[in-house]
């Protein structure tokens, strides 16, 4: 039941992400490469959606990127204890879909996962 709801949220996020990225990139120049796209997601896209930039972007230059947000907007209102950690993924599912949808419309197939170890930071 939990898994199904997370999947639905993720697919909703996917649709929204596709639409959003289309509107945001209407007037921007072509992206040079994957890293450029990731930087766009971290800066402009994240700012438009969450009013802040991603705090930390790491990559292994082989196709894996880790975006770290230390004060994820959707988690800030939850207590920072361990109590609700198991419910956090639900709140992240939509956002994962958002990123995946955005990347998909920019021509990148991806798998987006999220990890929360201590609220309100997440990767």
């Amino acid at each position, binding site marked *: 039941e939990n898994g199904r709801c997370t999947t639905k949220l993720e697919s909703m996020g996917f*649709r*929204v992400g596709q639409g959003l990225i289309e509107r945001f990139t209407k007037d921007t120049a072509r992206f040079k490469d994957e890293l450029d796209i990731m930087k766009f997601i971290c800066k402009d896209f994240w700012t438009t959606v969450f009013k802040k930039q991603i705090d930390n972007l790491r990559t292994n230059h082989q196709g894996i990127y880790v975006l770290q947000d230390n004060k994820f907007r959707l988690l800030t209102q939850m207590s920072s204890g361990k109590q609700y950690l198991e419910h956090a993924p639900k709140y992240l599912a*939509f956002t994962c879909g958002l990123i995946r949808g955005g990347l998909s419309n920019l021509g990148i197939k991806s798998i987006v996962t999220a990890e929360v170890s201590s609220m309100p930071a997440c990767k």
Partner: protein
Amino acid sequence: MSRSPGRKQENHKISRELFVLTYGALVAQLCKDYEKDEDVNACLDRMGYSIGIRLIDDFLARSAVKKCRSYSETADMIAQVAFKMYLGVTPSVSCSNATGNEFSLILDKNPLVDFVEELPAERASLCYCNLLCGVIRGALEMVHLAAEVSFLQDRLKGDAVTEIGITFLRKPEDRRHRRN
């Protein structure tokens, strides 16, 4: 739509496109989950209700309005303050009956349907914005005003305007008692 601020009074306006697109994705998902339009409408209404009972706190905290003394003041408040605060539009209010407990909010611009051209043929009786009805109903209930809220006209279904009807369920005389 804004979120309630923490300690700082930041401008928490969400991107309008994100909001409208998310609502659309929500309705689309519900259409996939439920076959019948009535089920989707009921679900949207329930969700709206849950949002409304909490939204009212946010509204009262942010708008600092005084108590409304009549149903028509309440209807005006919803249209001019609440709708403006959360959706950025101001519907016009009209009272549709003599006893003063039925009102209509006429929306000529509905931001939620920005990206919707028309309802698909097999979803002809879908009330796309039924969430709004639930929100109004829930919010009113939390201030002890029972009401029925529904769409009387809908631009998406071919009518000229979008009209939301609010029917307060208690006689106006009851409001003379002090209520919190």
